[in-house]
Each structure stands twice: as C-alpha cells, then as structure tokens.
C-alpha cells in the first residue's frame, strides 16, 4: 500500500481506494483535511510525504487469544498479553473526535475500524509495550483507553523492535479521563537505525475535575511525530512534559493542541529539547482558551539546547485566547550550553567534554526527575544516558 495515492482525493475516491462502504462521516473528515503535506501547519517541519510515499506491505490484524502477562504487549498492532484484572479487547471505537485537526487521526481510524480497548478499573499501574517485528510494513492500529471516576491510574508506555527496517507505524490513542480521576502516562521511546518511523495521533478528553499527566521521553534518531489534542473540561488539568534528545539526521517532536473548554481548567506544558548532529526537533504547540473557559490558567514553555551548528529546533509555542478572565504565559529559548556553567565545572578540574555531558544530563534531568516512580526514573535516565553517551564518546 502506498498512502500517497490518497493525496488530493475527494471522499468518494478515498472510500474507493480504501475499499470502505460505510463510515462516510470519517471518510468525509479525512478528505476535507486531506493527507498531510509540507504546507500542513502541524507537519511543516516533518517530511511526512517522504514517509507516506512508499510501497509498504500491509498486515492482517487478526485478534489472538490474549495470554496473561505482567504487561500489555501489542505486537505489530495485535494484543498478545495483558495482566489479569484489566479489560483488554478489540471492538469498534465509539468515541471518535469529529473535530480533530489531524488528517492522519481519521486515516488511522479508517484503516483500523476495530481498536484495542483498555479499560482500567480502580487504581492501577499498567505497562504497555509496543513491539514491531515486520520490515517494510505499514503497521496501523489504535488504542482506546478509559478509566473509572475518582480513580488513579499510572501507565508506562514503551517501544521495542526486532531487527527490522523501513517500517511505518500509524498509531494513536483515544483516551477518556473520567471525572475526579487522575491518569499519568509516561512514554519512553528510543529509536535508531531506521527501523521504523512513526506518526502517532492522539485525542485525550479530560472530564470535570480530572487530571492527566503526560511525560514523553523521545530519544535517539529516525523520524517520528506525536500529534496530540487534549480537551479540558471544568476544573480539569493537564501537565504535559516533553523531553527530546535527538542525534544524527533525526526529525522528531510534538505538534499539540490543548483546548480549554471548561471554567477553571489549568494546563502546564514544558518542553526540553536537546539537538545534536543534524537533527531537527519539533515543538509546535497551541493552547486555545475558548469563550466557555473563564478563569483558566495556562503555562507553556520550551527550552532548547543546540549541541551542533547544524542542529535545528522548530519551537513554536502559541496561545489563542478568546476571553479576558485568565492567567496565561508562554515562552521559548534556544541556545548553546551556558558558558559560565561550563567554565565553572572546568575550573574544578572537570574536562570540557565531561563538563558538557554533565550539563546536558542535568538539563534532561530537570524533566526526568518529574517522574515520581524512582525505578522508572532510573530506567529513563539510563535510556537517555545510553543514547547520549553513544553520540558523545570521548
């Protein structure tokens, strides 16, 4: 399958090309937004057309009997194991956002009419491991996650590959955070060796008085874009942190929209980006405060360090505000390592190379240390240092 054939096609043509006879409203939404390209705002800094214009082999997503395990394992888009006590099954998605800004969100739903549903009862810690084993493949799947009111869930999302090449993963979740509940999602993704590229297009709805904490740790090379839409109800809260460490000629990052719909909703979005080699980082983040969201508090900040003269950071924090009764701030900085700090370390006998490493690790740690569980914090630190030290030998 070559997805570029869907470029500039009307709804009827899209339906024919995808062999879809029903689900007209999704086809129309996709056709209206179109396949993303260089001029699509959220994809402006990401060479999406190059990824889409490839003949990928397609896979059959036949649900398997799910074995009991200590985590949810999804292999090439199919659930293979899940812990006891969690409801994990495959079904039609009933909560598709009909106002999403991303064409690939709808394409993902069109290609995956049945989604993996994860329903978490009570307070829980859940680990999700995504495994990819197929080369030159288009792996498309979606996950729907929901929790119970007044409960607290922590999810750890990790990615692994077999020895593969040139695969494209279209993935995403639709997440519904129930009233008075909390969901923390810690995502760690290290990529290298052109094994796979990814566009993950998500939608998170945060109900009244609920809170979602998203901590994203994206390390290494290759191409990946996380497209995120978060909607906040009354007194709802989102705390989103993004740490990017990229090397080689990687292009990765986040394009997000956080939409305040309810009164007294609050958002905090922090991005720390470290770019090495010829890497390009993307942080295209909009916070929109709607007429209905009086007394909102919104804070957005992006700090980037360029370790190489050819590294580039596309940092675009934006606020779109339709009311007066709110507190909002945003800012972005991009620069080199602080020379005063470097010199201070050197003046104590620490070599320039080691001092540089210490400062980069320290910059990353300010976000890594916001992960509460120390075991996972250490795991993320190790993953970061492994990638960073491999790129900065000497």
């Amino acid at each position, binding site marked *: 399958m070559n997805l570029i054939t869907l470029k500039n096609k009307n709804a009827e043509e899209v339906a024919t090309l995808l062999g879809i006879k029903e689900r007209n409203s999704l086809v129309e939404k996709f056709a209206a937004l179109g396949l993303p390209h260089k001029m699509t705002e959220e994809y402006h800094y990401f060479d999406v057309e190059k990824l889409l214009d490839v003949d990928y082999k397609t896979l059959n997503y036949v649900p398997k009997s799910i074995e009991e395990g200590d985590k949810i394992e999804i292999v090439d888009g199919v659930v293979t194991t899940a812990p006891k006590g969690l409801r994990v099954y495959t079904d039609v998605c009933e909560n598709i956002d009909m106002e999403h800004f991303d064409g690939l969100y709808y394409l993902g739903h069109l290609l995956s009419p049945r989604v993996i549903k994860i329903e978490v009862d009570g307070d829980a810690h859940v680990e999700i491991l995504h495994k990819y084993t197929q080369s030159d493949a288009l792996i498309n799947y979606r996950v729907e996650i929901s929790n119970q009111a007044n409960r607290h869930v922590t999810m750890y999302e990790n990615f692994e590959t077999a020895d593969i090449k040139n695969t494209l993963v279209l993935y995403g979740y639709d997440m519904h955070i129930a009233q008075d509940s909390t969901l923390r999602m810690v995502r760690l993704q290290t990529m290298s060796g052109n094994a796979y590229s990814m566009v993950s297009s998500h939608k998170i709805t945060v109900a009244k008085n609920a809170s979602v904490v998203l901590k994203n740790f994206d390390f290494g090379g290759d191409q990946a874009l996380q497209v995120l839409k978060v909607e906040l109800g009354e007194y709802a809260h989102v705390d989103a942190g993004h740490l990017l460490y990229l090397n080689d000629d990687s292009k990765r990052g986040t394009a997000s929209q956080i939409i305040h719909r309810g009164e007294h909703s609050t958002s905090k979005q922090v991005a720390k980006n470290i770019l090495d080699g010829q890497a390009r980082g993307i942080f295209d983040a909009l916070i929109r405060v709607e007429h209905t969201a009086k007394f909102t508090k919104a804070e957005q900040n992006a700090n980037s360090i360029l370790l190489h003269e050819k590294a580039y950071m596309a940092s675009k924090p934006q606020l779109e505000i339709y009311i007066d009764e709110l507190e909002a701030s945003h800012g972005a900085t991009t620069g080199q390592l602080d020379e005063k700090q470097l010199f*201070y370390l050197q003046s*104590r006998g*620490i070599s*320039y190379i080691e001092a540089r490493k210490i400062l980069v690790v320290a910059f990353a740690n300010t976000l890594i*240390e916001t992960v509460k569980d120390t075991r996972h914090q250490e795991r993320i630190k190790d993953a970061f240092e492994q990638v960073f030290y491999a790129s900065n030998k000497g």
Partner: protein
Amino acid sequence: MSIMKIENLEAKIGDKNILKGLNLELEAGKVHAIMGPNGAGKSTLSKTIVGHYDVEVTGGDITFKGKSILEMDPEERALEGIFLSFQHPVEIPGVNNAYFLRTALNAKRKHQGKEELNAAEFLREMKSHLADLGMKSDMISRSLNEGFSGGEKKRNEILQMLILEPEVIILDEIDSGLDIDALRQVSEGINKMKDGKRTFLVITHYSRILDYIEPDYIHVLKDGKVIKTAGAELVPYLEEHGYDGIKED
C-alpha cells in the same frame, strides 16, 4: 620561594585593555592580598590566572611552579593546583552537588595517579568538612548552588577548596554578601587551609576580610598594574588615605 610569577601581563576583555603590564610574584605558603579601586583589574587578574574564556592575554606570561600556564585549558590549571573561589558562583540546576564534588575530586585523584573514591568513601570524607563550615548535610544533595543564599554559595566554594586541596587559592571578593557569622565561618575554613605550604591570593575591595585572614603582603592594583607592595601595615594607611594616597613604588 616563588610559586607563581606574573610578568608584564597584558590582557583584555572584548576591546578593553584591562591589565597593562602587571608584575606580581607569589611566595609559596604566604597570604597575598590584592587591593584596589573598582575597575583596577582585580577580577580580570583572577580570571586570567584560571584561564577564563572572556580574557584574551595579549602580552607577558604567568608561570606556576616554573611552568607557563597560558597555553593550558582551565581544567589543566585546576588539576595542577590552582583554585578560584568565585565572587558569584553560578547555579547549575539538575547537577547534584555531591555528584559534582565527587566528579571534581576524582578528576584530581586520577590526575595524581590515585584511585577514585566511590560514593560511600566520598561521603565519609565530606562529613567533617560540612560540620566545620556549619553546612547542613542536605546542601550536598541539592542542585549545585541552586537556591543557595549568598553565604551558602561561599561556604560551598570553601567546601570545594577543602576537598580539592589546591596549592594556590584565589579568593575573589570572598567577603561580598556575607554577614558577620558567615564571614567568620568562611574565614575559619580558609585559615584551616593555611599550613605554610599553600599560597593565598585574596582579592578584595575592603579591608574587612583581612581582619580574619591575616595577610603577609598587600599589593595595590591600579589601572591594570601593581603600583605598591608592602606588608600588612599598609592596610590602616589605605583605610585612612584611600587608594589615591598611594605612591607608586
């Protein structure tokens, strides 16, 4: 015996010539105080000795234990035994103070051909120093200088000095921002290091610190040159007449 010799040193920061043929000889084991008015070049002198990026040396030489240090990187100078206590120590969020101190100490030990210390050995070494300086033990588990008061930052500088045991110690305005109690504790830490072998270069604007750290020599720096060298008896004279009253040697 001279441990450091500065000859006809000329240096600039940006386009501004600051040191204009400065001569100074530091005698091993002695306390040398550099005094002078604002803009005389006191801080530039300390930056030049430790190899700060801002300073461009345009003439002259600095030798330490008979070797020129001008071509050495800042870390090499530190490993050789030169230590600067900064007037304004930088804050480095995310760098744990204990980790930083151990990394610095182990760099030094490696340079000396000694075995590196593990975390437990290092902490044992630290404990007595912390108590002597009136530092709370949690200060070493915090980020380096982040959120430290002026006094805490200066104590942390002295802690580094005690751990790294340098041979030449430059104290740049060590008394600035310190109250009397902090000044006393910092001075005690410094005096503890006075063993007749270590050399101190105390850079100061005011004579107050010299009540606590007794100098052997006073050097008056004016317009990028040392214009007078005398004993401690010069301090009361400076108090009374100011720097304008000094006649060049």
